[in-house]
């Protein structure tokens, strides 16, 4: 282990020790990851099996989160939904990480017209209220999960492009790119070998920070009836289905998926803050 690595680990340990909240967030994250990976295997019931005899039951020991209007077990649905929600968010974040990251990298590295074009695209996206733009995209491209992923990626594009561009510019100005060019590397090789590894940490932090937003966005789209369709278990849809029952007092149908969703977003936001502290000690707040 190199000295730099040791100090990063030491710093990470220090941050976790100073800030137990990040530790809690990491544990929560592990829980969500387990739900997403194991999903159906750990759900106590079939998430789609309806049983009108058991409809609208308040939480009991048999059904810890109660049952919905079709008698489906809410706990099982909440667990199974993790894969859908986190999957959509992760896919969109990976997509925008690749697209936005590369665009920003190119803009920062080449400057000139590349920079101008990327900047124009980012500005045009930013000129819309983002959720509204996502609605418009999904409505236009068609009401499917891949399009939800795409829309969520597009509205995050400016953020990633900007961060990647700014970081690339700093590395450029630091001069070692020029040094490498003098020693005979070509542009493509330079980008991949010199710049990319250097902007990786900050981009990963960015991913974790936007995961929460991506989850919120996807769930919001499902809530208004875009993307995932019933009877698929998904947190936003489940809240939408429970919405009608809130006024008559059946709180559990919306509460559990909603709270699970909220906690997931909270967990990613905390984790992002924590990771940022580890990656970039200067920017601690």
């Amino acid at each position, binding site marked *: 282990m190199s000295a730099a690595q040791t100090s990063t680990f030491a710093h990470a340990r220090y941050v976790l020790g100073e800030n137990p909240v990040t530790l809690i967030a990491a544990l929560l994250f592990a829980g969500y990851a387990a739900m997403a990976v194991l999903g159906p295997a750990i759900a106590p019931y079939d998430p789609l099996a309806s049983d009108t005899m058991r409809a609208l039951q308040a939480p009991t020991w048999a059904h810890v989160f109660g049952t919905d209007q079709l008698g489906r077990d809410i706990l099982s649905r909440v667990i199974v939904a993790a894969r859908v929600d986190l999957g959509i968010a992760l896919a969109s974040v990976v997509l925008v990480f690749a697209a936005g990251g590369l665009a920003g990298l190119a803009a920062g590295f080449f400057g000139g017209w590349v920079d101008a074009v990327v900047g124009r695209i980012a500005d045009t996206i930013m000129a819309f209220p*983002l959720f509204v*733009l996502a*609605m418009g995209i999904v409505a236009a491209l068609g009401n499917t999960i891949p399009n939800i992923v795409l829309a969520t990626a597009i509205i995050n594009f400016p953020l990633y492009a900007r961060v990647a561009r700014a970081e690339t510019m700093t590395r450029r100005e630091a001069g070692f790119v020029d040094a490498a060019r003098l020693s005979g590397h070509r542009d493509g090789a330079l980008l991949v070998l010199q710049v990319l590894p250097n902007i990786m940490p900050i981009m990963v932090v960015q991913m974790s920070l936007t995961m929460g937003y991506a989850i919120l966005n996807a769930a*919001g789209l499902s809530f208004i009836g875009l993307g995932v369709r019933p009877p698929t278990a998904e947190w936003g849809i489940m809240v939408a289905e429970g919405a009608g029952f809130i006024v008559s007092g059946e709180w559990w149908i919306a*509460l559990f998926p909603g709270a699970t969703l909220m906690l997931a977003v909270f967990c990613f936001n905390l984790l992002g803050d924590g990771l940022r502290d580890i990656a970039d000690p200067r920017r601690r707040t």
Partner: protein
Amino acid sequence: MRAILLRLVGAIPTLFGVVLVTFLLTRVLPGDTATYFAGPTASPESIAQIRTSLGLDRPLPEQFWRYLVDLGHGDLGMSLTTGQPVKTELVNRLPASAELTLCGLLLAIGIAVPLGVLAAVRQGSLIDHACRVVATAGVSLPVFFTGLLLVYVFYFLLGWSPAPLGRLDAFASAPKQHTGFYLVDTLWAGDFETFRAAAAQIILPAGTLALFALAPIARITRASMLAVLGSEFIRTARASGLSGPTVVLTYALRNALLPVVTVLGMVFSFLLGANVLVEKVFAWPGIGSYAIEALIASDYAPVQGFVLTMAVLYVLLNLAIDLVNRAIDPRARRGA
């Protein structure tokens, strides 16, 4: 004045970009636009008819030109479900959305700015910690969920607020329209009974929006207030014996508001999106719920009109933010 005009002109490329994107969203689709516009139950003949009537058989630039011309006449197309021109519906429903968003924003600013200021002035105190929790938790809230929670607590459990069904309960009648804002129009008419009814309806949805917008405003207020309080000119103000309120409010806060005003642009972006969700939860008859109904019916023209309206509103809001910034900051005024 000249500067304001210049800024207006500067917004034109952005507006053009917005219009272009909304246009492309309808025309460059994987599916067939005419089928889309005709709705799911149309016959092949009617689709063909729509294609020619929409000019979809023409080259794209020409289509775009016609789109621009239509826009210039305020023509946003017809809604297939209601049979009404989209423009009429949007204009009728816009005040409801605007009133809700503005109430939410004012509520958020009214709470978040004092909270951020107190947190900065009393750094490390209870209120400071409260502010930090709010700032992190607030951005994690799915508005549609918090809205439902508020309905459950304040309508179902406590019975304090009326049923979450629109701008007025069934017994009240809408005030004579001046601004379209019920809270203003009722006062205008001196109808306090209806004012109370309208206020009772709006408080929960506006509160939901405020809860959401609170976090970024409080966070940035606290941070910029801390920075300003540590700056040299505040030390001068203290050294010249100016009173505490003068130092904190006249000297520190006005400077600290500059970044807050800038961040409002981002807050508006979130708020206009959240507005759509909140309108659905509270059956609020604004342009958001109009768009949602149209979306579900695959009625595309209203959605397109909605996206365009929101984007134009957002551009204008950003313009307004810029002007406020100028009003506060002489450097922005004289600089450009």
